[in-house]
């Protein structure tokens, strides 16, 4: 239950908006959920809808619109590679293809250890530094620019070691 688990957080978020514009808090509330469980399930959408006095469908539309939100579970780290036109001109598509190949997955899939999902997204505003991607995890968001498959794989290895050493029990403080 969102409302019980994050009472103070929710209050802090709601306090930022005038009461009649409560619906504006939909994005931070979605982040709250996603930080906690790495994706937004249907039940949480309904809870947010109730908190904000809007319909679940409206909440879902926001989730659907932004590539930052997920409505399906995936890897612990989401690697979002920009393959939009300018990046594609700098080889982003091959980059992603090769990266996936090396990880043994197809775009959109998750590695067998459940840690990494790789997916194509639209422009992330780093067009001149392609190939580029962002990594989204419970910890937040990080940009990686001017990438090669090799340094991307190195990063992935590093994250993998971190995840193993922290273990799932400690996962929570990672988000604080």
């Amino acid at each position, binding site marked *: 239950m969102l409302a019980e688990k994050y009472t103070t957080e929710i209050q802090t978020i709601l306090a930022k908006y005038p009461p009649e514009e409560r619906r504006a808090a939909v994005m931070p509330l979605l982040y709250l959920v996603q930080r906690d469980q790495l994706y937004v399930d*249907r039940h949480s959408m309904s809870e947010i809808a109730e908190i904000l006095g*809007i*319909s*679940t469908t*409206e909440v879902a*539309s926001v*989730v*659907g*619109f932004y590539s930052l939100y997920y409505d399906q579970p995936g890897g612990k780290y989401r690697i979002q590679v920009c393959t939009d036109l300018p990046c594609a001109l700098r080889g982003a598509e091959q980059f992603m293809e090769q990266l996936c190949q090396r990880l043994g997955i197809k775009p959109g899939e998750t590695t067998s250890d459940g840690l990494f999902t790789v997916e194509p997204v*639209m422009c992330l505003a780093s067009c001149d530094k392609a190939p580029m991607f962002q990594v989204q995890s419970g910890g937040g968001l990080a940009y990686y620019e001017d990438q090669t498959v090799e340094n991307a794989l190195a990063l992935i290895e590093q994250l993998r070691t971190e995840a193993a050493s922290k273990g799932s029990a400690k996962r929570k403080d990672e988000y604080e």
Partner: protein
Amino acid sequence: MTKLVTLTIDGMQVSVPEGTLVVDAAKKIGIEIPVFCYHPKMEPVGMCRMCLVEIGRPVIDRSTGQPVLEDDGSPKIQFSPNLETACTTPVGAGMVVLGATEKARSGREDIIEFLLTSHPLDCPICDKGGECPLQNLTIKYGSGQSRYLYDEKKHFVKHVSLGELIFLDRERCIQCGRCVRFQSEIVDDPVIGFFHRGRALEIVTYSNPGFDSYFSGNTTDICPVGALTTADFRFGARPWELNKAASICNHCPVGCNLTMNVRREAASGGDWVVKRVMPRQNESVNEIWVCDKGRFGYHFAASSSNDQTSFKRLSQPLVRKNAGSDHPGELVPASWDEALSVVSERFAEAGDGLLALAGGRLANEDLFNLKQLTTTLGGEAVLYTHMAGGELTTQLGIQPGSDIGTMGQGDAILVVACDLMEEAPIWWLRVKQAAERGSQLIILNSRSTKLDQAAAFVLRYPFGAETSAVLAMLNALSEKRLRLPEAVQVLERDPTLQAAAEVFSGANNALIMYGSDCIGLTESQALAQACANLLDATGHVGRPNNGLLGVWPRANDQGAWELGFQTQTKLEDALGAAAALYIVAADPAGDDPTYLGQSGFGGKAFVVVQDLYLTQTARLADVVLPAQSWIERDGSFTSGERRAQRFYPVIPPRTAPVSRAESPSTNKAPLLIAGDEVMESPLPDFAITAMITLRIDSEARITASSAARVFNQMAETVPAFSDQTYLELAQVHEQWPIVGRDDLYYGGTSYENTGGLGMQLALNTSDTPSTTRLAGTTVEFIRMPKLGQIAFPIARLYDRGKTLMPSQLLHERIGEPYIVLNVNDAEMLRIQDGDVVHMTVANREPDSPDRVTTGQTVVVQARLDQELPERVVLVPRSFGIPIDKPTPVEIRRTE
């Protein structure tokens, strides 16, 4: 007055109010600017770019502020380099719009090509084919050749059920957003939305049940492609095979104008079949919308005597024979001649002992003839209803020139004891929109309803204190204060009430809409009187957009009031005391076993039932007469806004031999009484009543020949109808926005009105309205019992009534009988949400609510509610639970 702006569109000059969009200005003078995402009822969004035009504006000299002139003295026009969207551009003085140029044309061609890059080639199997804006505009503007890469075509799911009523074909959607915008902007039910972006975008619903809105069907009308279709019509027929006939919805007092589409089908043995129900434009009634009950709930009228379900229609008269002292005999088929002679003989014998009990789904003509019969014999004409106060609406009701659609700034609407969304959805919409335009909406109710969200003042009274609550408003405005029961004293002191009363009193125009939420016949009479007093005291009577409006349970209850039908508070006694009963379009025995009485239904009375089906009451009758449904004949209904509106034959009478089934056109009434074969099939109610009457008194002023003649006779006799003729009801005038015709892309597939806009009735001024009557009345309210619960009846749009259950499609939404309990009561009774419980209805002792005598027991599902006060139980009407007024009940858990 709004300022007029003059501009030129394709060489034609037009003057339109400032702020008008170019696309609408063009429409006004019949110039086509194609649109997909724009809709005249919604805010423009400029999403599809189909409406591209060249726009030139006069050049203004900055130093002088004067227009720069060409050498020939005409103003110099500067065209912008790019095409602009006509749907988002407001008109400007001297603007020059070019929509027919090669440049505009090629812009549109590009848009079409773009839209088609991933549109399926479905037209041959698409329900929209034949009335599809995309199809039509492709033919008109599309290039003959496609540069489309077949390998890149996206494939999506083609049968997505957005709930069981509406289906989505993802491939066909062109992402115009009309459906999503309609649901949030117009009907405030944002239960469908966009998900993802770009090519991946899809329409989703997260409500439970899916697409949970009473207005969902309208999205299929405004969707410019075949992406949204109704489960009812999907793959049912091609639009060009359909005939059309104008009709009026028979489900609630709004009286939405409908067009029914029919065709003959081999599957039905060559019979005419109703394929779909569509809205027909009447901007003063339903605009271009209908609710889903009206759209999907037509089957009761269309079923036939071949129907294998329990909704098999009556096909011929039945007369009880072989009855003895120890056995009831049986109903056997008889000729009309035989049935009518039995009935007329027995009615004549009964004389003023005749009680005619009529249901409010009958037409004006039927009710008028019934009244003529009881007048001839001296009997009584009673409306079968749980809601009274009708005579007040004929005197202080709304009058010609009234239109909720014109109410706005400075006006007020008070809605009391009413759940408009459930009782009359399109009125909910119209009132909500009036509030959005600036009308002050005041809601007085004992519980929250969806309309609260739109209200400026929401006031709550304790259950059972509706009349006192209205009087509290009156008290707030007058020196002489009525003493009110303690229960409403908190409300009376509430400053919000004071403020609301002042707003109401000071409004330019004010309406009161009262319903029957949680009340019965007696209570509604008192409530109507209190409302009348408030209207009278504040001067809100006798002018358009002022007065009292009843949110009746049936479509033509208003007609019955206008024709002088009465209510009967002790109906079960009256039924038992009458010498003869003539029950038309009502099923009291089926609704409530109490009516069966001690000595069987109707006691010793001779009972005649006239209906569509062999109802419970019909099974107990001495004679059963088969009636035609309203779509098999013509006639008129009077809406709650006192608008008499005509409906036309849609299908031929069900059991008439097929050879007679001519094309039902809007101009031809089916032959009523011609030849023996037709004689043995159902007849219009007015005709049956007239034939009975004429057998009793051949001189009686009553006619069986046609609805038109009955109507005109009614106009001669009944003052309210005196300004009207049957013909005039069929008159139309130009309405805005222009819909239908050849350009379905603009307004959608709602039909243009060619069948008549109807006419509002004049107020009845012959009886002086009695607004003082209440002064002497003691103000009653329901006291909560010390033990047990009180059940309060509420309306649900989708109920288990006889006019809805034949529509299978709605069964999932209707659900099983249930009651709503307060959580604390439930805990005490050890009942959990969803439990099956026994509810025992106490005997009908309104005077001693504390006395719970055991009556009928029903088995229902319990739903729990936090908000409800203790001891209050909500019971939906027409769900097979015999509660039509506040009634003590006992509830226990089913062990």
